[in-house]
């Protein structure tokens, strides 16, 4: 990579600028269109929007690491020692998102029991589901 031809170098930079800019615009357009901000009444289902936006973001990340950070030109060992540990995050995402769902479920169970036991809670603002959100207890494993 030493003494790269300056025209080629500028080309890489220009390509990166356009690519990252266009992907960002596409992502924002999908978010706006999908949530009905561009055409009234038109929305996209989340199962289409989310994978597309996540995929485009991962591509941006790949491009930044491989082109801008020159990971492409490093040897295999360096690449693997940096990228393989990131795979641990896959399990972290699965485990913690699952855990989050579990917290929600637990809170619902507690709330239902309270409502069965004490009728008057229904009439009080404290029984409002949104109010219960304020404590996301850590000891509900």
């Amino acid at each position, binding site marked *: 990579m030493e003494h790269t031809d300056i025209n080629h170098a500028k080309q890489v930079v220009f390509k990166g*600028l356009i690519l990252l800019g266009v992907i960002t615009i596409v992502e924002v357009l999908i978010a706006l269109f999908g949530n009905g901000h561009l055409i009234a009444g038109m929305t996209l289902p989340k199962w289409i929007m989310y994978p597309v936006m996540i995929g485009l973001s991962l591509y941006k990340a790949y491009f930044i690491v491989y082109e801008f950070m020159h990971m492409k030109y490093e040897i295999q060992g360096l690449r693997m020692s940096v990228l393989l540990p990131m795979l641990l995050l896959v399990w972290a995402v699965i485990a913690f998102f699952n855990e989050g769902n579990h917290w929600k479920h637990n809170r619902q169970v507690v709330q239902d029991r309270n409502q069965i036991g004490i009728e008057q809670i229904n009439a009080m603002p404290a029984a409002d589901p949104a109010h219960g959100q304020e404590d996301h207890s850590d000891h509900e494993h």
Partner: protein
Amino acid sequence: MDSVAVQSNVAENDQNLWEGAKEPFKASYGKLMMWYFLVSDAFTFAGFLIAYGALKFSMPTWPLPDFVFSSLPGGIHHAPLIFVTIMTFVLIASSVTMVRAVQEGHRENKNGVVFWMGMTILGGLAFLGCQAWEWTTLIAGENMTVTTNPFGTHVVDGVYLDDEHGHPYEAGATPETFHAGQTYLIHKDHDTDEWIQRRYKAENGAVAQQAFGPKAFGALFFFITGFHGFHVFSGVLFLLIIMINAASGLYAARKNGYEMVEKIGLYWHFVDLVWVFVFLAYYLL
């Protein structure tokens, strides 16, 4: 793997030694350690973003980003995600100018390095300025803090009983309706400084008051974007130091040339990389 080749290389060229050892991964000590620092930093950011996801999943409702982040400077509202898109472009542009600075470093063009690093610093400062405006809007204008989140979300369809100032609708006025999943902002009364939680009537006839949104939303927002902003801020400081060093001719005299520019470049691209995921998690999904 190709230890023979490396060894012969070592024998020929003492400059490639790390104090007597072979150079692992054919990368200099500084660059390799920068990579491993970035790995550890990636885990820190991932911890924050995964916490965001877990807490979001644990709440019955979550504020819609295209409602929360819809202001523009100049008093413009209802422009969902436009301002954060501009912030993203600013950061991408500064990443691109950083690539140019590294390229000029390879060409040992001192003035080019200084110029493009200067542009990168301007980009970083512009991003920080945007973030300062965003925080100011949320804190001073919309009263969101680490412990208070006035962005709530309806869980049912219904109709408001109070107008925006918290007073019951007068006879003959058309009351505002809302749908489940719609996010609202609880305002503060300018005179009394008290929250105006509008009363509403749900579809099933129950009367209730606007509830506050999940607290974690505000706390996570300020910690995640604050931690990222702190990275940008320290990045700008390091860029400044290295730009001054480059301008002074320090790196022209060094054996490894402009490697410091490459190292701060790695860090700067990483900051952009993290923003890709902050942008995805906080603003898009």
